């Protein structure tokens, strides 16, 4: 059950996000003074001198490097957490995330294929999306054939499809040119926001927003889907189309984030659990709370990734280390109440 009132929790999560935003703008190997940040930020709204009020390297770092990276990081984090919370509800299983369900691996294969074929960014995204959706279709079909969409079969099918696409990714890497394509694939797969540019942020954010908005709006429906097909149907829900709409949105967000920043695991699994512990299981609150928490989490992890050591640590590695550790603590402390059957 909820620990604190919903309103207090949402305000606290928003404050956390605001602090994470400020921290990831000012901290890093090139420190930016809070006063300079304020001057630049006010400048965006036409107040004060803006860029002219700070040294050129300062505003260049903020506007051309940190802000795009921040936007992409926050949206990817929010999107992945939203996907996790949605999938856990739709599949009535708190162990599901975009990775378990095969979507990430599918999207990764699509992306790797695009890099291998030397295609551009648009093709990479399209291939990642198509392959992600294909993976999801395979999982749903397999679990359906194996009997009434049992949750165990679903997770097993997800593991199998994930393994299949991972194998295909390995195969593609094996054939890749070790001088240029191979490193590109390997670093892309490990996940990073280092490639963030203002242009990338501009075409990436609308994609995530377009897919996230329906999910956020249909969050009451996700509550009902989480009761199981038969009950949802008895409550008057058109189950299949509703579930497909949710799954397509999840695939869109996952593919967009994989296409942009590689596989960043664990966010979709851990953040919804964390959020559920704070605001309770009602998806009407859980979905926005997961998105806020996911954004903050991703910003802080990215901050660690780029400032802990001289070189940049791949994000996927850090989220796995941090996520797995946090999850262990959560599991240790959790009463099984929240996900017992």
């Amino acid at each position: 059950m909820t620990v604190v009132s919903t309103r207090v929790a949402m305000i606290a999560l928003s404050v956390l996000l605001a602090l994470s935003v400020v921290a990831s703008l000012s901290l890093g190997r090139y420190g930016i003074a809070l006063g300079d940040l304020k001057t630049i930020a006010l400048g965006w709204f036409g107040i004060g001198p803006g860029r002219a009020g700070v040294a050129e390297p300062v505003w260049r770092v903020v506007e051309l490097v940190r802000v795009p990276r921040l936007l992409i990081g926050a949206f990817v984090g929010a999107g992945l957490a939203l996907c996790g919370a949605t999938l856990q509800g739709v599949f009535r299983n708190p162990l599901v995330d975009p990775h378990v369900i095969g979507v990430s691996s599918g999207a990764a294969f699509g992306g790797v294929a695009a890099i291998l074929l030397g295609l551009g960014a648009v093709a990479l995204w399209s291939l990642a999306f198509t392959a992600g959706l294909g993976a999801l279709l395979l999982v749903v079909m397999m679990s359906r054939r194996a009997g009434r969409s049992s949750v165990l079969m679903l997770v097993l099918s997800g593991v199998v499809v994930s393994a299949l696409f991972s194998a295909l990714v390995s195969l593609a890497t094996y054939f890749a040119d070790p001088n240029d394509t191979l490193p590109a694939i390997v670093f892309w797969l490990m996940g990073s926001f280092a490639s963030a540019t203002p242009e990338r942020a501009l075409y990436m954010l609308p994609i995530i927003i377009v897919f996230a908005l329906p999910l956020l709006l249909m969050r009451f429906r996700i509550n009902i889907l989480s009761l199981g097909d038969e009950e949802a149907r008895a409550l008057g829900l058109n189950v299949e189309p509703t579930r497909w709409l949710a799954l397509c949105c999840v695939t869109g967000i996952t593919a967009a984030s994989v296409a942009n920043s590689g596989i960043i695991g664990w966010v979709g699994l851990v953040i919804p659990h964390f959020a559920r512990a704070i605001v309770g299981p009602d998806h009407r609150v859980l979905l926005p709370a997961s998105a806020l928490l996911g954004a903050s989490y991703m910003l802080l992890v990215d901050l660690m990734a780029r400032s802990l050591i001289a070189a940049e640590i791949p994000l996927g590695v850090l989220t796995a280390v941090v996520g797995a550790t946090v999850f262990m603590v959560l599991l240790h402390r959790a009463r099984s109440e929240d996900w017992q059957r």
Partner: protein
Amino acid sequence: MIEARAVGFRHEPALPWLFADLSFSLAAGQTLVLLGRNGRGKTTLLKCIAGLLAPSAGEIRTAGVIGYVPQHFAPVFSYSVLDVVVMGRARHVGLFASPSAKDRIAAEAALDQLGLGSLAQRSVTTLSGGERQLVLIARALASEADILLLDEPASALDFHNQAAVLSTLRRLVAERGLTVVMTTHEPTHALEIADRAVLLHGEGVAEEGPVAEMCTEAKLSELYGMPMRQLSYASGAGEASHIVASYAEIVRARSA
């Protein structure tokens, strides 16, 4: 209103009929019970009426919103009682909308009507079986159901809670003119609240009629394949009947 015409069901064409050629009609404000041994199609018939399963033959027509109350309710997530009852409003909430204040008020009214107002913020997973059944009935009421379909609403409940569920149903029928269909293994419940009864004998044999004609010693003994006895007694509320399984006649005979 429920109208069933020559309804039959079998899981596959190669399998025998569970029930066949079953016709009945139920007016608003009437209660029907479905009786029969395990696996003879009680729940199946209930799901056919609910529209969750398609009958293999015949047709069932219903007029009004249906509220289906499943036998078991074990959500994966520990929603609060109010959250669960608000979900009954799904029909009245658009795809991309969230329940409004009006929906919340309807849910709270349904809870109050069943005397569950104080449980609103409790997690459903912490409720007793009896409380859960009442919460599900409240959810059906919040959906503004005209027809209530209940799958063994009193099974696994102690006597006190069974009485609570039965009297609630009876009150709702009287106050709101609800049409109720429920399955049960307790013929006494049928005598106490039902107008009509369906006996599902299996292998395609089913009959329907007024409860007084269906729930007799002879018919029920045949239905359950063991002697059933009707006991009449003077209760505090007047003349009452109890139908019991005469275990003595079976157990003693077999162990002798």
